[in-house]
């Protein structure tokens, strides 16, 4: 079972979270060219190793998190609030 250290709630079972998606994607502007949207929505790398993902602590604090997970071992390397401002507050960078 994957255990995710939520920066707000502490370490919890993955069953409290919903997997979001690829956390490395920067979504284009709403009026960006079709090509950009196609890439953002459909093109995914099938990474063997560490990848950045979004997870939602849906049955917890309901915060969206950026999680670095190893796709082979399920090892979790880094977890932070997806929202930059909130992450800054947590880390005292206000």
């Amino acid at each position, binding site marked *: 079972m*994957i255990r995710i250290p939520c920066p707000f709630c502490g370490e919890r079972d993955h069953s409290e979270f919903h997997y979001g998606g690829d956390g490395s994607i920067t979504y284009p502007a709403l009026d960006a060219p079709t090509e950009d949207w196609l890439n953002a929505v459909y093109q995914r790398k099938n990474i063997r190793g560490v990848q950045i993902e979004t997870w939602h602590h849906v049955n917890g604090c309901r915060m969206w998190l950026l999680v670095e997970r190893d796709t082979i071992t399920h090892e979790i390397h880094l977890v932070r609030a997806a929202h930059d401002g909130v992450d800054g507050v947590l880390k005292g960078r206000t």
Partner: protein
Amino acid sequence: MSARRLSHGGRIDRAKTISFDWEGRKLTGYPGDTLASALMAGGQRVIGRSFKYHRPRGIMSAGVEESGAIVTLGDGAWRDPNVKATTQELYDGLVARGQHAWPNLHFDMGGVANFFSRFLPAGFYYKTFMGMPPFEWGSGTGWWMRYEKLIRRAAGMGTASRAPDPDAYEHAHAFCDLLVVGSGPAGLSAALVAAQSGLEVILVEQDFEFGGDLLNQANPESETKRIELLSAIHTAGVRTMSRTTAFGLYENSVAGLVERVTDHLANPADYLPRQRFWTVRSKQTVLATGALERLIAFGNNDRPGIMSANAGRTYLNRYGVLPGENIIVVTNNDSPYQPALELAKAGATVHLIDARTTTPELEKGCGVSVKSESIPIKAHGSKGIRGLESTASEGIQSCDLLLVSGGWSPVVHLLSHRGIKLVWDAQIACFLPGDTDAPIHVAGSAAGIWGSKDCGASGQVAAAKALGQLGHDIKLPTGKISRGSGWDLPIKPLYEIKVPGRKLQSFVDLQHDVTSEDVRLAHREGFQSVEHLKRFTTLGMATDQGKMGNIIGMALMAEALGKNIHDMGTTTFRPPYTPVSLGALGGRHVDSNFRPIRRTPLHDWNLSNGAIMTLAGLWDRPWYFPREGETIEDAYIREATVARKSVGLCDITSLGKIAVQGPDTAEFLNRIYTNPFAKLSIGKARYGIMLRDDGMVMDDGTCWRLTETDYFMTTTTAHAATVMVWLEELLQVRWPDLKVHVTSVSDQWAGCTVAGPNSRAVLEACVTDPTLISNETCPFMGVIETTLTGAIPSRIARISFSGELAFEVYVPSDYGPSMMDLLFNASKPLDGCLYGLEALGTLRIEKGHVTGAELDGRVTIEDAGLGKMASKQKSYIGDVLRKRPVMLDKNRARLVGIFPKDRTQRFNAGTILCKPGAISGFGEGWITGATYSPALGHWIGIGFISGGFESWVGQTVVVADPVRDQNINVEIVLPQMFDPAGKRSHD
């Protein structure tokens, strides 16, 4: 019969007799017995029949590796098949019987299969019956499906009860610093060191007693040591759990355990669950899981009366049963020498046959004769061994028990669950744990350390390693513990006995009847990898998972391929280590607890007003409100009629409700809805559609502007959670710069829709200031915040899903029943009524309004007939990708209404729309909703058809209903079937 209970010795309590039922006969045993030990003491040799050849089988082991003594326990709903007699504790009134035999264990008709065994090799059934000519040449597997049922019955494992499981199960959770699996000398020592150093330790043991192999010893010092260790770990605060199997090891040091709470009790208390399924989250794990003794493949090595050498010792020392009086022991290693001596001391004649040239020295007069450089060839006797043919002597040497030791296999299954490679150690002939960085430490015989003292020391080392990884400053115990310690002389690998020119039927997997020859057949058929070997022969795929024989299969395959076992590798062990009941996995998530049920704050009010409820998703909602003698059809038609004629009330609390607040809310809404929201004025609501990034419709709903920065959003019932998650993702991940906050308020507001020409009159009677409800102050899509009679705070919007003049009224949840009393009392003089989900569907289908049934995630905004809601003035989520050519293709299935050609006919939802004469495949479209329409006086439907209304004007279409075998001619109309101009709601 040769096995007998001794008058003294063992861990059984002879003061109390337990009686149980075996195959309809009364037998007795003692507390401390397993079913197997009691059967053995009772002289029972044939315990079951084998899976494929129906060969008689007896007790082969004294533990979880058992592949012979597999029985069915209990009767009726409690019938539990495939129970290992060797691990089942005896209790008063236990009922057990053998499996796979008809009419009985001693005369089994299925036994004829054995005479044809050379025609029944691995893969026989598939090869013979699948694609069987002439029926199935190129035509699939229809006949195979029929044969398979018969074949399965002939083979058959035990049969489960068809009745619902009458027992309760529980899920439980635990946390600790260190989980120790196994309570032999290694596990006890590890737990003690760790707990004394301050760790929180849980020690689990699958047996009903702690001690592992210490329980099988004859010398009293072992028992003294066991009691000392146990008392010390309890003093140190170790939490111990017996009858608990660690069946799986997962990421992050999470282990799955099954605790058998009442399986050993004659009359368990009502409040106790049968089993508990534990999820244990530890930081470190010590595996002291022991090792299992292997068999050797020689002729008829499956006969009742053949068992592992250590099992012989266990029955003697733990259960006080002398398993045989004339015993032959065959071995290739040192381990059965001690058991042989103990059995001889207990009164048996013991002849030891050792494959090695050099054998351990035995004292004169010990009662055991040793013949070196000798191997067994073939066992004789069918329902019980009578003798052994071996290279030790001419002819058949008689015996009543044959003990076999082919070496030991460490229990490394849990490591394998974590993907840790196993390494073949040629010197001690077994797979050992490979190196790993994982926080798992293996100790004792699970690490190939055989001597009891060394096992204890290795447990201390494992605990020290765990402590070290947790940051404790611990010195590793000194002293060298080497693999294979405990044996004076090396093992001589011996897997299969082959005699040139003779066919010996020797088994490598007894439970699945896989023979040595089957393994070679797999090789001849071209299989190379162990994983394929396993699947072709089913080696190791029975409920014992090949614990006694798998290694032999690997060895034989390696030999056939000309490789060594090291290069072949082993199959991957996967959880569970031993079978786990489905009941334990399910826990309390059964029946009405299978998933949560959501009830609105109006639930009791609805029930006391005659509602019949139905489940819609998780929600328990009013379906219809029948009056005396009404059917559901009568009721919903009346309810919909009253709503159009006068006024109807409907509980709409289940709609998703979200408070969207903050200075950037207008901008946020403008980005997520397809239609313009930037200029929605305060006191107005708007219908809106949200798309996904890929351009498909996600949800529709309304959004009310209460103040400059405060909005109240409603979503469909079905998509409430999805939309909430989506808004949170957008605000936190994608647009962190927007100052908007979203809060789910679905549970905070109770809602009622008041629909019909008299709805204004009803509301006027209920609000504190009736002038607020006029057409001027509350026009179509107008929003007011006011109070109902009795100072009930409320939010009211003039929104219509029914197509009538209608209002949605929301009050804080606690006021819900009061609101309903007010509204219902006001509607009674106007002949109003309550309506349920069924009439709600009727009203919305008449109007062509979409719901979750239409917005199924595969529908574009144009498909839903809402293209004009897609703004051209702004960009929004899904805007770019919805414009892809295929998404705009005019021939896509579009929303339409459906009328039967013959207006007296009816049709069903879920049916397929086809061209006449082309009723096949997916057709041209589908129907998502159908109802009798009181407004139109006939049945109508809503659905999708390729090209939409324009493509089918004036044509006949067929509603194909293959399930009910009826086809109805229909015509396609515009989805707005009633009051298309919307006069009734806008006026």
